């Protein structure tokens, strides 16, 4: 108790230390005069003060989660005007199960000829939009906003969803000068907390007796100052994964007053056990009657494990199509999804588990999180939003995802390739499975061509796509007709002309895709003086370094390991001789992260080029950034380097 008192005293002290008054309406002249945010002069807007307090209160004989919001925001530039429009999402349908917002107060402050001018928000300019059956949105935009305005608003939300605690967002797209977040969690609930992001912040914890219920509340506070804006960087799969935040989730309920005890997620074991007991997860696995007729046929036809796996995967893919929804739990249940022919990820992949088990295999559902949902580092239920399937075979674990039409055993779509999955089984110890695929995404070019005296090039290209590259190809290109596909390639490849185009294995998803064609290119080389210049890789050359920023804070995300292989045999015109060839090179990166090999040799009037670019990891940490950047620089330099040929007739 003494400690708490000390904390409170210390806080009081800090508050006194402030010259700025954060009471509602006490906007200072100094705030209005400020021309730019002192710590980030380019910020278009900044939160001067962002306060939110949440607690549970008895409201009209119903427990309600109360949220009090108070925001003071400064707009520095026109580009920051969009911060003056506020949307408040309110969930639910019906009087007792809906969230509602009350007690609106808002005003814009401007400095006009040295005088503070206040424009209040009129109630009639607050709109309530029924977005869909379960979602209402309160919307308003502040009046009289100018460059330099300070905006202030406050409101209260009452929600019947007392355990549904939104994240504390510490970092925003604009800087925050002062943040005060306070959550008083009712003692009945035990919450798991998860801190995420790269920006460090402190969590203050204490307890306090709730006056309405006479039970101890857990109090959590985040009190931070001068939080920098979250700035996006390219090649990050989901920027909000890296925003500093504190997430909550109910781990257990212990409410003797209402005779309720329940554990949700205190350990990985609990999560797995709860999932198994859930009617929309574990219990679904026993609902297999609707599959029986089809299963009888499959059982008769199949003998080997690998045949069973492939058949089951293709069977489920053909019966239930992904409706685009994620979910750790079934949306419809596997039977309904089957009859309707569509379902969410759990509907589909739990069906797959059921089918595999019926075929006598050891298959389990695996709880995972999509790349856009982030990484569940601690035991958590909210952290999961996706399900894949694992089969134990003699050769090892095989991962499957029937929600992706073009997936293969162990070749999953990009969205599912995220860290680790939790295997849901009856075992006392929970097992995890690595989802970052070791299977390499592969592209190979075989380009053989001939250059004539006029610089006309004709040749043949055979290009192979494997694994993730093939999934992407099938998703992107399978709807294009051949003419469209050809003209896209022609355009991408610097205006070559394609003849005799053939595309192999587009529908045979277990095989790599192969494009084969003859091509021609007029003026494929450059004549300068009596010399001929050309880049031997032609259209396969990497001309641009995608890593342009000087520094990087976040990991580089390739999805899976990958490689690109180029083999080229070039026949040069008879009247010409080689004057200069690029030098061979072979480099490797630290910790076997990647390698680049470029080798070129001649054989009579032929030049033989072999190049390999390889990255051995799907996710590369940011401390490798400079290395990756210079690795790419080397690749670009090398692949744009020219071969020079001299006309023999002109040799002096």
């Amino acid at each position: 108790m003494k400690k708490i008192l000390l904390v409170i005293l210390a806080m009081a002290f800090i508050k006194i230390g402030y010259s700025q008054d954060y009471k509602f309406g006490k906007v200072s002249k100094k705030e209005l005069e400020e021309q730019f945010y002192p710590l980030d002069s380019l910020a278009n807007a900044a939160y001067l003060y962002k306060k939110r307090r949440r607690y549970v209160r008895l409201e009209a004989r119903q427990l309600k989660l109360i949220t009090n919001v108070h925001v003071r925001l400064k707009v520095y530039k026109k580009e920051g005007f969009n911060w003056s429009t506020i949307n408040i999402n309110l969930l639910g349908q019906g009087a007792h199960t809906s969230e509602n917002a009350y007690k609106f107060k808002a005003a814009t402050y401007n400095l006009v000829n040295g005088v503070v001018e206040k424009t209040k928000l009129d109630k009639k300019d607050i709109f309530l939009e029924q977005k869909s059956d379960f979602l209402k949105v309160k919307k308003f935009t502040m009046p009289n906003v100018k460059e330099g305005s300070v905006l202030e608003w406050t409101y209260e939300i009452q929600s019947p969803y007392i355990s549904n605690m939104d994240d504390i967002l510490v970092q925003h797209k604009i800087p925050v000068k002062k943040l005060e977040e306070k959550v008083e969690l009712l003692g009945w609930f035990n919450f798991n907390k998860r801190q995420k992001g790269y920006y460090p912040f402190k969590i203050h914890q204490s307890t306090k007796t709730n006056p309405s219920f006479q039970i101890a509340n857990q109090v959590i506070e985040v009190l931070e100052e001068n939080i920098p804006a979250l700035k996006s960087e390219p090649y990050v799969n989901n920027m909000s994964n890296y925003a500093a935040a504190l997430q909550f989730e109910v781990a257990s309920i212990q409410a003797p007053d209402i005779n309720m005890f329940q554990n949700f997620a205190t350990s990985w074991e609990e999560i797995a056990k709860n999932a198994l007991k859930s009617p929309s997860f574990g219990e679904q696995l026993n609902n297999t009657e609707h599959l029986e007729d089809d299963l009888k046929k499959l059982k008769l036809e199949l003998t080997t494990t690998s045949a069973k796996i492939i058949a089951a995967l293709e069977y489920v893919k053909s019966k239930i199509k992904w409706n685009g929804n994620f979910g750790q739990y079934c949306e419809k249940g596997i039977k309904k999804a089957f009859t309707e022919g569509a379902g969410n990820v759990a509907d589909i992949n739990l069906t797959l588990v059921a089918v595999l088990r019926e075929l006598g295999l050891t298959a389990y559902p695996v709880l995972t999180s999509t790349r856009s949902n982030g990484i569940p580092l601690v035991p958590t239920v909210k952290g999961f939003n996706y399900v894949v399937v694992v089969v134990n075979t003699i050769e090892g674990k095989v991962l499957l995802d029937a929600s992706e039409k073009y997936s293969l055993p162990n070749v999953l779509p990009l969205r599912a390739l995220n860290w680790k999955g939790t295997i849901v089984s009856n075992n006392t110890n929970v097992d995890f499975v690595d989802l970052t695929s070791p299977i390499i995404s592969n592209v190979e070019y075989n380009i053989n061509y001939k250059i004539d005296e006029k610089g006309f090039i004709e040749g043949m290209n055979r290009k192979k796509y494997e694994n993730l590259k093939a999934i992407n190809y099938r998703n992107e290109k399978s709807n294009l007709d051949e003419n469209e596909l050809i003209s896209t390639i022609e355009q991408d490849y610097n205006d070559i002309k394609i003849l005799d185009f053939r595309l192999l294995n587009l529908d045979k998803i277990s095989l790599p895709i192969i494009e084969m064609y003859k091509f021609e290119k007029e003026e494929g080389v450059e004549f300068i003086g009596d010399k001929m210049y050309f880049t031997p890789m032609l259209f396969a050359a990497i001309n641009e370094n995608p890593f342009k920023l000087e520094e990087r804070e976040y990991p580089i995300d390739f999805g899976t390991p990958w490689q690109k292989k180029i083999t080229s045999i070039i026949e040069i015109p008879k009247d010409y001789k080689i004057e200069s060839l690029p030098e061979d090179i072979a480099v490797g990166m630290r910790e076997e992260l990647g390698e680049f090999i470029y080798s070129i040799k001649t054989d009579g009037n032929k030049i033989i080029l072999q190049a390999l670019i390889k990255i051995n990891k799907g996710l590369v940490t940011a401390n490798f950034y400079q290395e990756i950047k210079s690795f790419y620089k080397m690749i670009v330099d090398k692949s744009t380097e020219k071969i020079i040929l001299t006309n023999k007739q002109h040799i002096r």
Partner: protein
Amino acid sequence: MVALLLYSTVAYTQDYNFDTSKIPEKLVKNANSIIRFENVAIDIKSQKEMIIKIEKAITIYNKLASNYEDIIIFHDKGTVIKSVKAYVYNSEGKEIKKIKKSDLNDYSASGTNLYTDNRVLYYNYVPTTYPFTIHYSYEIKTSNTAFINPWLPIESYRQSVQKSVYSLKYPSNINIRKSERNFTNYNIEVAKETNKISYKLENIAAVELEPYAPPFKNFMPNVKFGVNKFNLEGINGEANNWEEFGKWYYENLLQSTFDLPEVTKQEVKNLTENTNSPIEKAKIIYNYVQDKVRYISVQVGIGGFKPMLASEVDDLSYGDCKALSNYTKTLLDAVGVESNYTVIYGGPEKRNIDNEFLSVQGNHVILNIPTKKGDLWLECTSQKTPFADIGGFTDDRDALVITPEGGKIKHTRIYKDSENYKKISGKYVLNNEGSIKADINMISSGTQFVNHLSYEGKTEKELDKLYKEFWSNINNVTIENIAIRNNKKIGEFEESVKFGAENYGVITGERMIFPINAFNVTNNIPKRINNRKMPIEVARGFLNIDEVEVELPINYEIETISNDYEIECEFGIYKLSIEKLSESKLKYKREFLFKNGLYPKEYYDEYREFWRKIAKNDKSKIVLIKKNI
């Protein structure tokens, strides 16, 4: 009559066989979707009541046609939706799903608006296999007769139509107007009876998209309808020509909104008292508005057509295109400058208000200022555009200008190709290692003014990335300094950038090779098309001029300089010339005038060739060789 209509609808359903193998091969070719039949029956009961019956069956072949899988019914307070029914059939024509009205979800259609009372009933079908057919019907009753569904039998590229029928019935006290377009190449059956007109079109094969083609609806058949007595969100109207229509519009939708407070009137009078020129006054007012307001859209009921009160905009400092244009108008009125509220279709595609066809049209509002030297046009929703410089969003098209005396159709500003300029000047220094240091200024104007307008207000990190992407032809760039200025007064957007880049010159043995033109490189050559069907349309031209000095590295001397190049044809003029200022200094000039125009399809190969030559010369190299020291 009603019974007859009902009978014919029923007959359709029974006649149709949704087995996809029965569809003529000609229609399947190139099609992502096929409209098996569409039957639209519109019955105008009175000035204030219209019933729309829609029945449609569409076969979807792949996910590129996925937006036709959905059932989308827009509605608002003035509409009643009845008898929604939908079925899905597999490729053999067997019913696989039945959809009820309760399966559809009701959403707000607010989009980017802050608020609107428009709503949408929506159903998204998730297909398990292709092809399949979705067949639906519904009925809408509405009091809005100002908008009558047009007949657009073919909605998009790669869509075939097996049968499309449209009928419009109207009472005898109402006159209908219609605008039939692009009927010539199609065999369209038109049946005119007393108080009824109908259209039918059958077996139209899918059309493929070709780059640089004119807008789709410029060559596809369509009919638009309007009535002389209509109802718009509860307000009755009657008009037989643009003049009457404009007068109705002015009196019912505008006049009551001109309530500018006296204080503001006085304020703007004071601001403009030092000049007598109406244009100068207008400039001051335009600036005043740009500094005061921002764009926020709220559309409720008649508010979708009627601007917010000027006093409200004055108070709140925000509004949509109607509100802000109207507000600017009242300010101009206060200082004695005439201006007119102008309804237009906004967008990069130059879409005219159909002069021949009187009806409520347009999706945007700007302001017209008639002057002795011609019309000026003001875009009032942007805080960044120069005065009377509307750019590519509303240029070169017919618009409806609403004056107190009535409406008239006028054509907005046409930008000459040379007015849309981008001028790059500066220099770069190449060193012995092949690195460059560049220092350049770029000025954009006309329709190019907006190219980088959004860069204004971006953070340093964002700009760093944007410029590196803009000059993606140069690798290993390090930006040293960026300065951006919106010179609104003279309508020029100015950018100056200093940067360095390693390995711009590629060293091969004794030689260093580098492309002389560093800052304006054409990469995209229009793709090859066999047997092109559409004419070529270049909607806007431009003029780009680059003049750059190049300092050469001291250890190298020039071995070869590519020859000057010039091409002139109907598509434009391109010149690249290199001047040797000294042994160590070059200057290149790249001038490219790209002309707007419409060319017959036979010109396409030539058009490609033009771009191919430009792309090639844009990459012209200089070869340096190491000096013998």
